[in-house]
């Protein structure tokens, strides 16, 4: 009896949230661009989930693309066996593109989660307390942001690939170094963004009203400031999920990310570089992986763009 009462209360409590969610979905349905974004992202999620079925792994590490027994340099065009054709060394592009999707999700989610955690915590603290803490945190972000991101990551990869990774006991692989580097250059932007939001929210009357009600700092931060400051960050994070994958792909393309034969779109395009000089003769070597990256980013960008409009409280309340 009691638990049922509690459940109905919980249900009542969830109703407004569900209403907001329905509203959001309705708005997404209304705009064709966000609909495209939504379907693209869903498409990639389906591919990622079904990857073991679509392209059954043949090796212990599923991210290593299987290759034929004899080494064939010349790429083979799309065929029954290799739907997207092969690239240097008889590497199956279809497998690479499919497993590249999982890899992209994995990379994007890990990087964004870490960046969000660090960035939001530090930004919240800096913005709320101000003073010396703020000064120290913000000056540190200034220093990291004084570098164009890619270039600092390049330097880190060069350094780390000659240093010992404490987790593995060997020198850092370029791919791990790249992920670490992207995290390192990613968080200051979030810290700045959320700090600005916190400073804006902090001056609102309801924060003072909460203080007048006797709330502690922690309560004000978690119950009032964070819920009102987080939305722009969520939007940026959804946009960045694509951007970070693009970033990693660019590094792989330069040869500073995934090793050859790894299921990474950027790496596959790097491989295709050798065949570009033949014009469109070996078009499949770069068109397929390129399309995958582009559509992946496009999906997240469109979705983020839609969120930007929909989650804007001003727009909502109208």
């Amino acid at each position, binding site marked *: 009896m009691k638990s049922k009462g509690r459940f109905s209360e919980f249900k009542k409590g969830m109703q407004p949230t569900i209403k907001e969610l329905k509203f959001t979905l309705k708005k997404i349905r209304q705009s064709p661009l966000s609909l495209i974004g939504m379907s693209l992202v869903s498409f990639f999620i389906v591919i990622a989930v079904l990857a073991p079925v679509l392209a059954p792994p043949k090796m212990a590490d599923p991210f290593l693309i299987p290759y034929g027994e004899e080494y064939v340099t010349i790429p083979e065009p799309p065929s029954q066996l290799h739907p997207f054709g092969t690239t240097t060394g008889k590497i199956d592009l279809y497998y690479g593109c499919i497993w590249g999707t999982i890899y992209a999700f994995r990379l994007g989610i890990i990087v964004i989660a870490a960046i969000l955690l660090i960035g939001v915590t530090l930004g919240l603290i800096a913005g709320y307390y101000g003073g010396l803490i703020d000064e120290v945190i913000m000056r540190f972000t200034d220093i990291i942001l004084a570098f164009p991101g890619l270039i600092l990551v390049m330097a880190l990869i060069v350094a780390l690939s000659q240093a010992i990774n404490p987790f593995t006991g060997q020198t850092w692989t370029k791919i791990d170094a790249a992920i670490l580097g992207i995290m390192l250059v990613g968080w200051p932007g979030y810290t700045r963004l959320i700090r600005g939001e916190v400073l804006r929210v902090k001056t609102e009357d309801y924060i003072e009203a909460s203080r007048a009600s006797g709330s*502690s700092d922690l309560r004000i931060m978690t119950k009032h400031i964070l*819920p*009102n400051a987080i939305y722009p960050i969520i939007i940026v994070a959804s946009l960045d999920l694509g951007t970070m994958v693009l970033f990693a792909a660019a590094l792989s393309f330069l040869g500073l990310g995934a090793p050859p034969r790894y299921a990474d779109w950027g790496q596959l395009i790097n491989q295709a570089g050798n065949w570009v000089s033949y014009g469109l003769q070996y078009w499949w070597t770069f068109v397929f992986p390129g399309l995958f990256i582009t559509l992946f980013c496009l999906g997240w960008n469109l979705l983020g763009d839609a969120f930007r409009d929909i989650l804007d409280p001003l727009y909502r309340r109208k």
Partner: protein
Amino acid sequence: MDTLIEVENLKKYYPVLGGVLRKKIADVRAVDGVSFKIFKGETFGVVGESGCGKTTLGKTMLRLLKANGGRIFFNAPSDELIEIEKMEYAINSISSLDSRSIVYSPKLLKLLKKYGLKYLSAEDLTKAKELEDAMGSLKKLDSRCIVNSPELMRLLREKIPARKRYELTKISSSTLRRIRRHMQIVYQDPTTSLNPRMLIKDIVAEPLVAQGIAGGRKVYELVIDALEHVGLSEKHLYRYSHEFSGGQRQRIAVARAIITRPRFIVLDEPTSAVDVSVRAQLLDLFQALQKDLDLTYMFVSHDLSIVECVSRRVAVMYLGKIVELAQTEEIYKEPLHPYAQALFAAIPVPDPTKKRERPSISGEVPSPVNPPSGCRFHPRCPIATEACKRVEPELVDVGGGHFVACNGVSK
């Protein structure tokens, strides 16, 4: 008359940063040496134009802003009184009790012992002791319930100190948080004073939850009680503030303010953001609550005609100073300070037959960063003399609790 709040020479400055190193180069003197008393049960009006420091004064008095000087004394109810009120509330809400029932409360026993009340017979005490043992297994019973004897409560009320005088400018932040329940604030614009991402039930319950006054089911009951006080009901609990009209939002803000049963509420322009037709409803509500809950208000507003209707006494502020303070009828009928005169004369009267040619003062309020020397009003004052540029007038009683700060009047 009972003094609830006493303010002595209160000062609140905001720093103006400047220069290469962002150092403080000047002060905005928002409140600059203000003294007055607010009596229990009254509505104390504070009027003035924008930038005169009236809102800052209200917030500084609640220590939402830290004062730069001066003292504030707040006569809050004593902890014992709060305890007794809590018990009475508990007893009243248990309808099955009759006047002979004895319910156990260790806290009351402690109080009774402390103040040497031997109202309970030895037999009753034994019974209570037995109950104490029995209670151990009945955890569900509310431990705050007590002997249902109004007589005993009355006696106890006489014994305990009813009030405790806190110096708000000195107390620690933990004490401050504890007595926040006795003083509250209602803001001008409910769209910004209510968290847009919180449900009404959480907004109204916040003071209870944040200060740990109540928990669980109790909170729910108290929230509904508070909402009913302001004319809303249970069906509004699970909504966001943007789903309400302006008047209703302000009611929600009021419900949050009264949920801890405060003694003192600062009403900071509470009707400025609503339309005329709704304004009257809110003013009605404030008066009804004042009667029901024994509230004392400080009503801050730039709308002089409303202040006239609601306040018993009114203070007029100009550039961080009180220039005149008196009973409402007195000050509105015959203001003494030249600024107050100009201010009251400038209110447009909604009666075309009373169209009169009134003198308007020239110029605008100067910046509070570098207020004029001497009397701050002298550059705009029609009766200013050379002396006014040098001598800063003090707020003095010119008879019957009518205070004026003007060199021309006090002489």
